């Protein structure tokens, strides 16, 4: 006889789901629907005149060569940030997971950057790598390397990638460390007894057991690079030089908040939303199959 819990009646399950559904409705569906509505309107910054323009905002958007540049930049930026922030965090987490003297101090220090606001992180990196004032940029230039993120687009992109990675490593580190600590030591010891070296133990035992964490972080990180990095970009490069660090989300921010062009900004966020939903769906459909729970 099956002993699973079954709720009788219709009301209770809905009631239990209600809080979660309410939050999703208020904080996701409502703003998302507003964005969609806004993307069909042309409105001034104060909201005094608004006019239904159909798909005009989208047409104008896809007629802009700068938008395609931004899509390309986003692809490069998001893959670099996701791969680097996950890779670096995993490396740090495996090192911190060892039996170290003062290990908790390292762990605490590793988590700190997460508490820094993106804009502050941006300013920090801006000043470290400012071509002439920066504490690290000066030695670079003295060594004869013409470090100039103000005019060199590649340098600027490197700079925002580093800032965005630095900001996210702490978060990933936290989850990887928790994931590592949840792996039973006996399994690893058994591997060691069977003669597997540290690398082989990592790739055949630890990494597969970490896959649920990695998958979760992959989704979270992609959402992070797509939606939350505009503060860093604004503080470090303002999308420059010559648009080389203007990602899609920064363009949403620049056109909407700085430019007051809410229609285009809304259209862009709808495009962005569709892309991220698609990416997430692909991840759950194909990548999740490789995850071992």
């Amino acid at each position, binding site marked *: 006889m099956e002993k699973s819990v079954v709720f009788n009646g219709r009301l209770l399950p809905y009631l239990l789901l209600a809080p979660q559904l309410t939050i999703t409705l208020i904080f996701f569906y409502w703003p998302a629907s507003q964005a969609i509505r806004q993307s069909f309107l042309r409105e001034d910054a104060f909201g005094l005149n608004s006019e239904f323009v159909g798909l005009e905002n989208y047409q104008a958007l896809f007629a802009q060569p700068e938008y395609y540049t931004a899509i390309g930049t986003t692809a490069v930026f998001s893959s670099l940030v996701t791969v680097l922030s996950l890779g670096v965090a995993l490396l740090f987490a495996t090192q911190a997971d060892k039996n170290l003297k003062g290990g908790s101090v390292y762990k605490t220090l590793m988590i700190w950057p997460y508490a820094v606001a993106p804009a502050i992180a941006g300013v920090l990196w801006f000043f470290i790598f400012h071509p002439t004032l920066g504490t690290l940029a000066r030695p670079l230039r003295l060594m004869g390397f013409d470090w100039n993120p*103000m005019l060199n687009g590649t340098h600027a992109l490197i700079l925002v990638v580093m800032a965005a990675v630095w900001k996210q490593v702490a978060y990933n580190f936290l989850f990887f460390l928790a994931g590592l600590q949840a792996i039973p030591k006996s399994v690893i010891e058994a591997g060691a007894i069977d003669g597997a070296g540290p690398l082989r133990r990592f790739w055949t035992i630890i990494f597969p057991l970490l896959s649920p964490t990695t998958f979760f972080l992959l989704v979270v990180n992609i959402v992070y690079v797509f939606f939350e990095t505009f503060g860093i970009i604004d503080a470090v490069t303002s999308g420059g*030089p010559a648009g080389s660090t203007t990602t899609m989300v920064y363009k949403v921010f620049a056109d909407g908040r700085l430019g007051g062009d809410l229609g285009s900004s809304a259209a862009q966020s709808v495009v962005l939303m569709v892309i991220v939903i698609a990416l997430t769906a692909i991840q759950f459909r194909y990548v999740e199959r490789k995850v071992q729970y």
Partner: protein
Amino acid sequence: MSVRQFAAAAAVAATFGFAVSPAHAVTEIQWWHAMTGGNNDIVNKLAEDFNASQSDYKVVATFKGSYPDTMNAGIAAFRAGNAPHIIQVFEVGTATMMSAKGAIKPVYELMKDAGEPFDAKAYLPAITGYYSTSKGDMLSFPFNSSSMVMWINKDELKKAGIAEIPKTWPEVFEAAKKLKAAGHDTCGFSNAWATWAHVEQFSAWHNVPIGTKANGLDGFDTVLEFNSPLHVKHLQNLIDLQKDKTYDYSGRGNQSESRFGSGECAIFLTSSGYYATAKSTAKFDFTSAPMPYYPDVQNAPQNSIIGGASLWVMGGKTADEYKGVAKFFSFLSDTNRQAKLHQESGYLPITKAAYEKTKADGFYDKNPTLQTPLKELTNKEPTENSRGLRFGNMVQMRDIWAEEIEAALAGKKSAKDALDAAVARGNAMLRTFEKTAK
């Protein structure tokens, strides 16, 4: 908001909130501003003095972050139905505010309705031109204005064997080459606010248009035209000099002003409002000089245009509240108060009387750097091309212009292509703005 600013704001709030216990109803006037540091103190002191001067109104000054932040906060508050009475908006936000009919209360109308004595001619025309309609009606109240000047490190110029402060662009280029030879190998000369320097001020100073319709002052159906041969020639000069850092680009904003203070760049164009910072950081003898010009351009230099911010009055408030705002503006216009404000903050005096008084007091003899921007602004009677500029979406448009200039300086585009693109992309934005601002 930094901790200190927050503490200051909290202290002010506490002072007004608890120390004053009015015997009768006091009308509160909310004033949102973007002034930091020493200027924040000045703003708070102004509000305090006004509140002490009468008992019917109480001005509450609130710091709202940077200029764009303050403006966005004001717009958001308006959309939410609780806008402040007065909001400080930087000059590039002017077109956006102006087009928001119903959201704002024009200052000339405010003063008339409130019956406050007000003569638009008492204010410096170079300043009010920016904030007035083509008919001369003042829309916002000038508060802190500045202009662009050329800061000069006199010690380094002397070391490099440059006897006289350069006056023209060719002289600046020559001086920069000498400076570079004398050891300034990363920066012969530079500037902050890239587009302000090389598009906006440059055009006014040479009496060439940035756009049609008197740079947008006479209507939003304006078309940009700063891709003239003169503009192309100037940008080409910068591109050539950038190659060996005789000129070195310093970004779109003013984060790199410290290149002057640290002695790295001995010639640096930036706002006259940099005065207070220069005074406190520079360990060398410095001065300000007028912006350079091309001597082969007829009648150059013309006059410069202003930067800084003005105070906008938001719409939909009661007559009593407007009366308070009008009284506060009269209070700010007082000659002694304006003269003192100018001398303390380094911003320009907004009334002619305050300027004359400062001059008569001999202030400029001791502080000649503070007079440079005034001399520039009043150099000649403003023309269609130098009265000011008013383009919709100017905040973002500046970024677009800067993007193209950066592409040119990085060697990705020719000067002509970059300026053509800047104009074309800007025009597209202007057309969007024109459609929303009916």
